[in-house]
Each structure stands twice: as structure tokens, then as C-alpha cells.
């Protein structure tokens, strides 16, 4: 075991994967010599050479399109989009190509690629360094969508994603890169070294895709969440004194419905929490599933706490970000309903 930040864990996952399988290649903007604007690929080019880890032109469609071609050849590209906010030029390649190549070719060609991208707000990133576009990917048949919330899972999930035979969208909450963040922006940030999930196996291990985990057991209400909001939800539960069961979904597609249903049937209440905007967000899918699967067990309407339906603002960051107070309010309202 070693103590790692989320950045180090992600880097370690690529390092381990590249060391085990020479078909794994890593590229993206500033990913090579410089080691990435968030340092996630630092040292990989030096260790594995320029043909395994290299800089790409500033062209997201090119990065993903080239990765798809490489995967068709037989490599396992793990590429980086510098910010999730800049994945849209690659959306056609991801939706029309990566997601469908296995299906449309009846398995003659496959697309075992990972598209990594820093996601989420809470860093004064404004409109184009804060977005959470996961719902644009969970709506696409053929993709897998992963959002880790801590260094341990980030490494295990990323190795699993690289080894997975299908295309994986890997969203890394950049607010969590250096330490857990519970939404209390006015308090000093604690580093991952002081958090139990900052303990990460140094070697190869995986966290299975499609498996949620109960982060904090409780009996009164189920909180379905992922990424940064896992820590916000934990803080909200603690501060409100409500006995909430916080579930970290980890993989949004395919979704671990069994863990969700078991919890909601036990607590009979459910609050869904995400940073992304409310309307047609992934929370709508979660809410619909809970309603379908747990209707006769529910004591209260399923509540959603999400970003507002606006572009992500700059100055109003903390009015926008669904912090612990808003989550606690929803927990209380759900308990009183």
C-alpha cells in the first residue's frame, strides 16, 4: 500500500497498465513531455518512450478518432481530453463510432478505449472548466461511464477501464485531485494522505465496473450520488444528524441497480445528488428507476439536488454548487415528507 493523491493514483493506474501490456498507449494535449496540465501522466513518456505516451494536436475529435483507429488495429489507447468541457468536438466520434463499432460490425471490430477527462466544478473554473457532462454519455448505448470519488477507486476503476473490452468514458472530478472536498469551501482542504481511501495498493488491482459501494451505511434515507458529491453528501448527513445511507455509484453505466434497490427498500426514502444541471441529468434516470423498482416501498417522493439549469457561473460558484446545506435541506424535507 502507498499513500496517493487522486492524481498519483490515476498516474499509477496508467503506469501499471503500460507496464503490463505494451498495447496500452497514452496520448492527449500536453500529456507527453510535460506530463499533463494536472500532472496525471508525469514521467510516463520518460519511462515508456514517445511512442507509448505522447503529445497530441489540439483536436479532440482527432484524439478520439485516432484512438478508435488504434483500437481497431488492436491497441488499447487511454486518451485524455484536457477538460470534460472540451469533449464536445469528439462527441461524434464517441457516440457515432466508439459506442457502436462492436454492434454495427457484429464484433468484427471492437473499441477498447478509455477517454479520461477532468470533470466537475468547485474550483472557480467558470463555464468551460466546471461542467459535468456525464448524462450526455449515459444516454449512449455501447458506452460505459465511470466517475471515481477517491484515489483507491480511481486507480482500481481506471485499470479496470483500460482492461475492459468496451469504450469507457472516465470522468475525474478535478476538485478531488488533491484531497476530498465536502463543499465547505471556506475551510482548509484536507489532503488525501489524511483520508483512508488515500491508501492505495502500489501494484495491479481493479475495482469492478458496474459495482456501487455503500460509502456510509444508514437506515433513514438513501443518497444516490457519485464523484465530489459523495463527500458533500457524507458531510450533509453528518451535519444534519440524519441517518443517511450514502451510495457511491462509481459506475453510472452500466448501473448497479441491485445495490440501489436493496438500500431504498430498506430506508424507504431516496435523495439523488449530482453537480450536473437538473433537467434530463443522470438524476432523472436514477429517480425513474427508483420509482419503478421501489414504488410500493417509498414513504416520500424521490428528491433531487443538482446544479441549476444554467451554465456554470464564475462569481456565483458557491450559490451554484450544490453544497452540504442544500443537500441537508433535501434530506430533512424528505424525512418530513
Amino acid at each position, binding site marked *: 500500500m502507498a499513500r496517493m493523491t487522486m492524481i498519483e493514483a490515476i498516474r499509477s493506474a496508467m503506469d501499471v497498465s503500460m507496464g503490463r501490456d505494451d498495447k496500452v*498507449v497514452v496520448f492527449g494535449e500536453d500529456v507527453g513531455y510535460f506530463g499533463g496540465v494536472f500532472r496525471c501522466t508525469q514521467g510516463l513518456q520518460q519511462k515508456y518512450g514517445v*511512442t*507509448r505516451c505522447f503529445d*497530441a*494536436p489540439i*483536436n479532440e*475529435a*482527432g484524439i478520439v*478518432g*485516432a*484512438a*478508435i*483507429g*488504434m483500437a*481497431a*488495429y*488492436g*491497441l488499447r*489507447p487511454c486518451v485524455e481530453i484536457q477538460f470534460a468541457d472540451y469533449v464536445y*468536438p469528439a462527441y*461524434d*466520434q464517441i457516440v*457515432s*463510432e466508439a459506442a*457502436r*463499432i*462492436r*454492434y*454495427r*460490425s*457484429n*464484433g*468484427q*471490430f*471492437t473499441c477498447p478505449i478509455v477517454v479520461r477527462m477532468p470533470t466537475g466544478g468547485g474550483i472557480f473554473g467558470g463555464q468551460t472548466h466546471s461542467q459535468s457532462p456525464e448524462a450526455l454519455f449515459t444516454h449512449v*448505448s*455501447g458506452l*460505459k461511464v465511470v466517475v471515481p470519488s477517491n484515489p483507491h477507486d480511481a486507480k482500481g476503476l481506471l485499470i479496470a477501464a483500460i482492461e*475492459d*473490452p*468496451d469504450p469507457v468514458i472516465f470522468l475525474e472530478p478535478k476538485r478531488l485531485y488533491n484531497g476530498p472536498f465536502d463543499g465547505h469551501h471556506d475551510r482548509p482542504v484536507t489532503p488525501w494522505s489524511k483520508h483512508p481511501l488515500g491508501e492505495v495498493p502500489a501494484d495491479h488491482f481493479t475495482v469492478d465496473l*458496474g459495482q456501487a459501494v455503500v460509502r456510509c451505511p444508514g437506515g433513514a434515507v438513501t443518497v444516490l450520488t457519485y464523484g465530489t458529491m459523495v463527500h458533500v453528501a457524507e458531510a450533509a448527513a453528518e451535519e444534519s444528524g440524519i441517518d443517511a445511507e450514502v451510495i457511491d455509484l462509481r459506475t453510472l453505466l*452500466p*448501473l448497479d*441497480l*441491485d445495490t440501489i434497490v436493496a438500500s431504498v427498500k430498506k430506508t424507504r426514502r431516496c435523495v439523488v445528488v449530482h453537480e450536473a444541471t437538473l433537467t434530463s441529468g443522470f438524476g432523472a434516470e436514477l429517480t425513474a428507476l427508483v420509482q419503478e423498482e421501489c414504488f410500493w416501498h417509498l414513504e416520500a417522493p424521490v428528491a433531487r439536488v443538482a446544479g441549476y439549469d444554467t451554465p456554470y457561473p464564475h462569481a456565483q460558484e458557491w450559490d451554484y454548487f450544490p453544497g452540504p446545506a442544500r443537500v441537508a435541506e433535501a434530506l430533512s424535507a424528505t424525512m418530513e415528507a
Partner: protein
Amino acid sequence: MSDTEPLRLHVPEPEVRPGDAPDFSHVPIPKAGSVPRPPVDVDPREIRDLAYSIIRVLNRSGNAVGPWAGLLNEDELRDGLRHMMTLRAFDARMQNAQRQGKTSFYMQHMGEEAVACAFRRAMEPGDMNFPTYRQAGLLIAGDYPMVEMMNQIFSNEADPLKGRQLPIMYSAKDHGFFSISGNLATQFIQAVGWAMASAISGDTRISAGWIGDGSTAESDFHAALVFASTYRAPVVLNIVNNQWAISTFQGIARGGSGTFAARGHGFGIPSLRVDGNDYLAVHAVAKWAVERARRNLGPTLIEHVTYRVGAHSTSDDPSAYRPKTESDAWPLGDPVIRLKNHLIKIGAWSDERHTQAEAEIMDEVVAAQREAEKHGTLHSGGKPSTRDMFEGVYATMPPHLRRQRQKAGV
């Protein structure tokens, strides 16, 4: 106050429209044999003029002339003719099958047969093409079974793609033919990625990308050229300029400003322009570009100058936007007739043999169709199973899809 005239938007228009007399006087056609053949390791800066000319081998009298001639023997040329004739007969039958309701859709290759058929002969087993929907010549010239193509077109029980794909969106990995997508230009950059992977792996295989004149306007065209040039990828980038993108003439993709081949110059990619209706020229240029890629000298851009004689698809009526007889006026003629005339000229063919070959080929195509129809057509006979609809989305079916499949009762 400004003292200049109000601004006006420029919208290019073709020279002629329905009812006008076809006119290609604005298309300069260099003499066959007039373009030099540089060594494959030439400095791209020395051959910039090749992107503005047209490499041609067959002249008006049917002779093969100039430095790009002489690569194919008589047997190979007869094979080439047979491939083009087969594709044409295949098109005719499938066009007809669509009209008879045996399939929903078809796209023919009329006038463009030489491009893919000749190019295919320059590639080797293991190489990979990333085609558009108008390069079935790659399959025909690669001896892919016509029955399989028809099974796909009919979406029948023997369809290799299990009825999941629109007709003609073939996929044939073992024949070096990448899965066709409906989304234009996406495969152009994928071809570059495949070539990069081959180079990363220290392999000797190369790839070829394909795109039409209209689709060069897509962003992925630019991405492909940047990546191919930056990483010196072993790829041949083919632009098939058939003058038309459905109803829009090539000027809407800004053809006519320089050439499509010349787009490569800005990226330092050697760029050639070839007579796309000249089987010998297409083959010679393909061979040159393939050798460059194989010798790790990097990418080549080829513009195949041709004309889309047929409708864009079975859902299109070209008489609504261009003169009906425009294809007759096309100055580069018909690829089948030109190769036929050349073979006759060198004493390797005759009108009688041609007529006989036409009949034999049509028999083969009809036999293939009869065989395919045993497995069903779109609305009758054997069909892919509904169960197949749920398979292959992922390597392993996830729980939510299993539930949906169970709900569908399959």
C-alpha cells in the same frame, strides 16, 4: 458613415443547372503521360505541381503512355476490367432489387468503378481500408463473396451484420475493409489512427482512408491531415472527387479554389491528383503512395478526379439539380470503356470477348442473388432474430439490457 458598398454574401453555383447544356470547359484535362513520376522518397516541396495537374496513363486512342504506365500485365488488366464490370452488374441488380422492395436502400458506383477496384490491387493482405459507402469495389476486387454483400443488403438471416446495419454499410475485417459508418468523414481520422498503431507496433502494414469531395468540409478531414502529417503515419488518404455531394456541386465544399489535393500542401503531405476513370493511372498512383507508406516515408494525399454518373442513392433524383446528360459530357469518359478499349488496342481483348464476359458476369451476379435470396430479403423469408438486436452492444450483456431483452420476450 462608411463609404463602401454594402457587403454581399458569395454563394457558389455550378456552371449549369437542369435544362442547360452540360459544360466542363472549366475543367482543364492535361494530356495522358504528361505528368512526371517522381521517386517515392521525393521531397514533397518538389512535387507541389502534382496537386494541380491530373496523372493520366490512357490516352484518347487507348494507348498507355508516359512514366506512370507499364505496371500491370495483360492478365492483371483483364482482372481489373472484370472487377469493374462485376461491380457495375452488381449495382444494376441491387438497384433493381431496391425498386422491387427486396431492400430499403442502395447506392451505386456508376462511373467511379476504377477508383476502388484499381486501388485495392495496390494493397496487400493485412492492410486496412477505411472506406465510405461508395467503395464496394474494394470488396469486389478483393474477391469478397457477392453473396455475403447481398445478404447484408437484404438484411436476411445470413446477414453477417445480423440485420443491424443499413444496406451497403458492409464490414469485412478479413478483407481489410473497416466497418462503414453513416457518419461522414469519421473514418478518415480513424484510418490515420490505425496507421499510427501499426507504426507504434513496429508492423509493416499500412492503411488507407477514403472520403468524398463533399465530406472534405467535415472537421474530421482536417483532423486526419494534421495527425497524419504530425506523426508521419503510414496511410494513404484518398479523396474521391465525383463533383457532387448529393445535390451540392463540389464548389460548396470549396472545390475550384485550388484543388482538393492541394489541401495537403498546408500540412506538408505529398499530394497527387489522378484521373479517377483511368484504371492504370489510379493503380499506378496507389502503388506509389502505398510504397511510400510502407517504406515509412509517411502519408500521401490522392484526389481521384471522377464523376458520379448515377443518382446519389436510390432516394435521390439528380435531374432536379443537374442536366440529365451531364455525365455524357464528362471529359474523362467511362472507366470500363476506356480500359476495354486499351485491352483491345494491345490485342488482349475483343468486342466479342467483352460481350461474352458481360453475359458471364451477369450470370454470376444473378446466381449470387438467387443464393442470397434463399436466406430471405428485407420483407420476406429468413430474418435475423430479434434476440440479435440486443447482442453485441457490449462484449458482455449488462443487466439493464438483459432485462429489456426479457421484457421483449426474446
